[in-house]
Structure formats: structure tokens, C-alpha cells
């Protein structure tokens, strides 16, 4: 028996329709999307376009502003490096993943930007105040995760976006954990650029990501190269999405992301989240208050169904290794989130519990029993 509770890294297993879509794309869409005019290339092009349409509908965006990337990290680097202005000030949150903080630190260290980190609190009002206080007249960009990959805390993105809109600041949101599990809409949430992975809550395969823009801010490409369009011009085309999609796209991966979104649309993200929340509640009800056990999850802020924990006398990697031996796959350590772990004050990292819609309640109970056996 192997049970995956590491769905915040990569969801597994995938819905059956994702597997089918991958096999179909492998068998029938083997050409280069948006390149040749022949029938094999055309099949790949149409597959990518249909996925683009689905993603645009999923996040309330225009088809042409929906860009396929190789990961959320790729999307975030494109969004961050493609929009920040030389000499400008950038604000980010204290719960960011390294895919946000590392590009920002690199930009700051090269003297291109100045950077402030807005502390995130259990209390949304305090968090919003923290962002308001960090913003200066030189602030041109705010980059903020929608939900933490360590504690699951959902940030007050709509309130932050209101501030950004009033001050004409570009808001880039990292939706890696949130997308697919809670509704995310560029229009309703006031997000200018949304970046997400395809292989987590969207149920696609690894090697997929999305950048979705509302079109307000121009994004300079991270890479230049072949786009299959305006090919006699040696300058990179300025049209979206071609401008940001140099190189042959991963048709199979993109087909998998579409199938994942179709699965979510069929089940509804509301139902998925409710079920996963139930699993998180089962975990919490069995583990909260256990001696020698600490849970990292804010009490007064909304959260996604994921959380971190520690057995106080066992290093996180040791605990995860023990659980692995019992058939439970959980990720330990610092979850590529140095800033978030520093904010939480975890010295040796944590173990993360991240269920998916394919987990069963009885497996959560067995996991809790296994943890209690070593406390």
C-alpha cells in the first residue's frame, strides 16, 4: 500500500481522463503545435488551442493572454522579470515560495529593484495593513501567493488587489497551491498576472505551467526564439501568446492540463475542496492536542486543505522517512520556502500533509495512528 499525501508537490494519482488525454495526444497529436500546416501539426495546434480556451474560461481571461509554460516557476520568472521596471520597488509576502523570492533576490542583488517583504499574519486585516505599509510611491509590482504551500493559509488577495488597483500597481499572483482547489478569477480577484503549475491542483502531468494575464501590463519575454509566427522578422513577435511561447510546446502535457481542468469542471472545485477539507479536518481532529506534536496552521485565517506538522522530538525528514516505511508519502523539510519557514520559525523544517480528492478517510486515520505510534 502506498498513499500519496504529497499532492501539494504533484497530485497523484491523476484522474482517468488525464491518462486518456495523454495517451490520445501521444497517439494522435505528434506534430509541433503552431508550426506546420500539415495534418499532424494541425492536430497538435488544435489540441493546444482547445486547452488554451479551457484555461482562459477557467480563470476568466482571454484566450490569447493564456500562456503555456513548463512550470509555475517558469511562469513566475517570466512574469516577474518581464514586468519589473529598473529602479522600481517591489513588495512580496512573507510566505512566498522560492520561485518568487529567488528571482526577486536576484533582481535586488543586481541593483535592478528594491524589495520589501510584507509580513503575513493570522488576521487578514493585519496582513492587508502590512501590505499597505510596505507599499511606497515607487512600488510598481506586488507579488503574492494566493495560498501558502507550507501552512495552506489563504491570503486576502482581493483586498490586496484593491490596493494595487487604486495605486496602479501590477499584481502578480502565485496560484500554484490554490488553482483547482479554490475558484481563482482574474476578473473577480483583480489579479493582473496569474501564474500556476499544471501538475498540482489542475491534475495535469509534471512539466506544465500557466501564465495568464489580464493584458494590462506588457510582459517582456524571458526567452526569444521560434514561435511559428512572423518568422521572417528577426525580432521577437510582440503578439500574445506567441511572444512568451518560444520553442516547441509540450502538447501532451498541455492536453493533460486541459483534461485535468475538464475533470475539475465536471466535479466542481467546490466539491473537491469540501472533500479535501473533510480529510484535513479528520487529520486535525485526531492529531490536535497530541502530546509532543505541533501543527503549523493559522487558527484565524482561511486555509486550503493542507498543513504542516512536527513531532517535537523527531527531525522532520526522519519522521517522513518513518511514514514512508509505513506506506505514506509526505514531504518533509523546507518545501522550497525558505521565507515561509523563517517566518514560521521552524528550525528543522516540517512534514506536510496535503491530501487530494483521491485520498480516503481511512488512510488519513491510518496515517494518524502511525504518527501517534512514534510520539
Amino acid at each position, binding site marked *: 500500500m502506498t498513499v500519496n499525501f504529497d499532492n501539494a508537490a504533484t497530485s497523484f494519482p491523476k484522474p482517468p481522463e488525464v491518462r486518456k488525454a495523454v495517451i490520445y495526444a501521444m497517439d494522435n497529436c505528434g506534430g509541433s*503545435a503552431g508550426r506546420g*500546416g500539415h495534418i499532424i501539426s*494541425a492536430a497538435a495546434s488544435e489540441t493546444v488551442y482547445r486547452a488554451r480556451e479551457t484555461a482562459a474560461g477557467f480563470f476568466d481571461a482571454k484566450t*490569447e493572454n493564456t500562456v503555456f509554460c513548463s512550470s509555475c516557476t517558469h511562469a513566475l520568472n517570466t512574469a516577474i522579470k518581464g514586468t519589473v521596471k529598473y529602479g522600481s520597488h517591489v513588495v512580496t509576502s512573507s510566505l512566498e515560495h522560492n520561485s518568487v523570492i529567488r528571482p526577486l533576490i536576484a533582481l535586488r542583488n543586481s541593483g535592478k529593484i528594491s524589495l520589501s517583504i510584507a509580513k503575513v499574519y493570522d488576521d487578514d486585516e493585519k496582513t492587508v495593513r502590512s501590505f499597505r505599509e510596505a507599499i511606497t510611491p515607487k512600488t510598481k509590482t506586488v507579488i503574492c501567493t494566493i495560498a501558502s504551500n507550507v501552512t495552506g493559509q489563504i491570503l486576502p488577495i482581493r483586498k490586496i488587489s484593491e490596493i494595487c488597483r487604486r495605486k496602479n500597481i501590477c499584481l502578480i499572483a502565485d496560484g500554484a497551491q490554490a488553482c483547482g482547489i479554490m475558484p481563482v478569477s482574474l476578473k473577480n480577484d483583480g489579479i493582473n498576472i496569474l501564474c500556476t503549475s499544471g501538475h498540482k491542483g489542475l491534475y495535469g502531468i509534471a512539466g506544465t505551467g500557466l501564465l495568464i494575464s489580464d493584458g494590462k501590463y506588457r510582459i517582456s519575454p524571458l526567452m526569444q526564439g521560434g514561435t511559428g*509566427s512572423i518568422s521572417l522578422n528577426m525580432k521577437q513577435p510582440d503578439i500574445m501568446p506567441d511572444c512568451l511561447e518560444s520553442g516547441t510546446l509540450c502538447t501532451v502535457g498541455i492536453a493533460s492540463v486541459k483534461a485535468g481542468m475538464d475533470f475539475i469542471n465536471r466535479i466542481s472545485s467546490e466539491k473537491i475542496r469540501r472533500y479535501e477539507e473533510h480529510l484535513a479536518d479528520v487529520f486535525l481532529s485526531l492529531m490536535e492536542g497530541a502530546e509532543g506534536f505541533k501543527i503549523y496552521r493559522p487558527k484565524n485565517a482561511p486555509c486550503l486543505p493542507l498543513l504542516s506538522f512536527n513531532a517535537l522530538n523527531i527531525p522532520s525528514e526522519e519522521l517522513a522517512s518513518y511514514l514512508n516505511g509505513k506506506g505514506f508519502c509526505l514531504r518533509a523539510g523546507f518545501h522550497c520556502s525558505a521565507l515561509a519557514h523563517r517566518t514560521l520559525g521552524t528550525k528543522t523544517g516540517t512534514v506536510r500533509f496535503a491530501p487530494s480528492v483521491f485520498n480516503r478517510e481511512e488512510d488519513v486515520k491510518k496515517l494518524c495512528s502511525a504518527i501517534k505510534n512514534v510520539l
Partner: protein
Amino acid sequence: MQKFILSFRSYTSAMKAHSILEQNGINSSIGKKADTSEGCMYTLNIDQDHDRAVQILNKNGISYTQGNCRGVRR
């Protein structure tokens, strides 16, 4: 019948135009052309309601140019 062909700078714009026209009951087929000044471009071959097709695309803010091509029909 005389062919009515629109050119687009990207496959996405051509497909978007194709989808919008389809939703409005106008059939079209996508092709590819090698434009001597721009390079690779995409075309939409429209067999019917040319004026209405153009009106619909204009209304939806889709940019195109008119021109001939030898594209592959699907």
C-alpha cells in the same frame, strides 16, 4: 466560388476567429502561408457570408489582413 481569405499573425488569433465565426454559424478552415514580407502566418478561408464574417471579427477586436494563400484545409 471565389475564395475569401483572411490572414492572421498567430495561430491563436486564427483559431479564435475560426471559433467565433463557427459560433455565429459561419464555416471556415485554417491554413498556413509563407508571407514574403512577414514569414509564417495563418489564414482563414471563408466560403460564405464574407461581409458578416468581417463584421463579427471587427466587433470582437480580432485583427487580420486580407490576402491570398495556399494553405492546407482542415
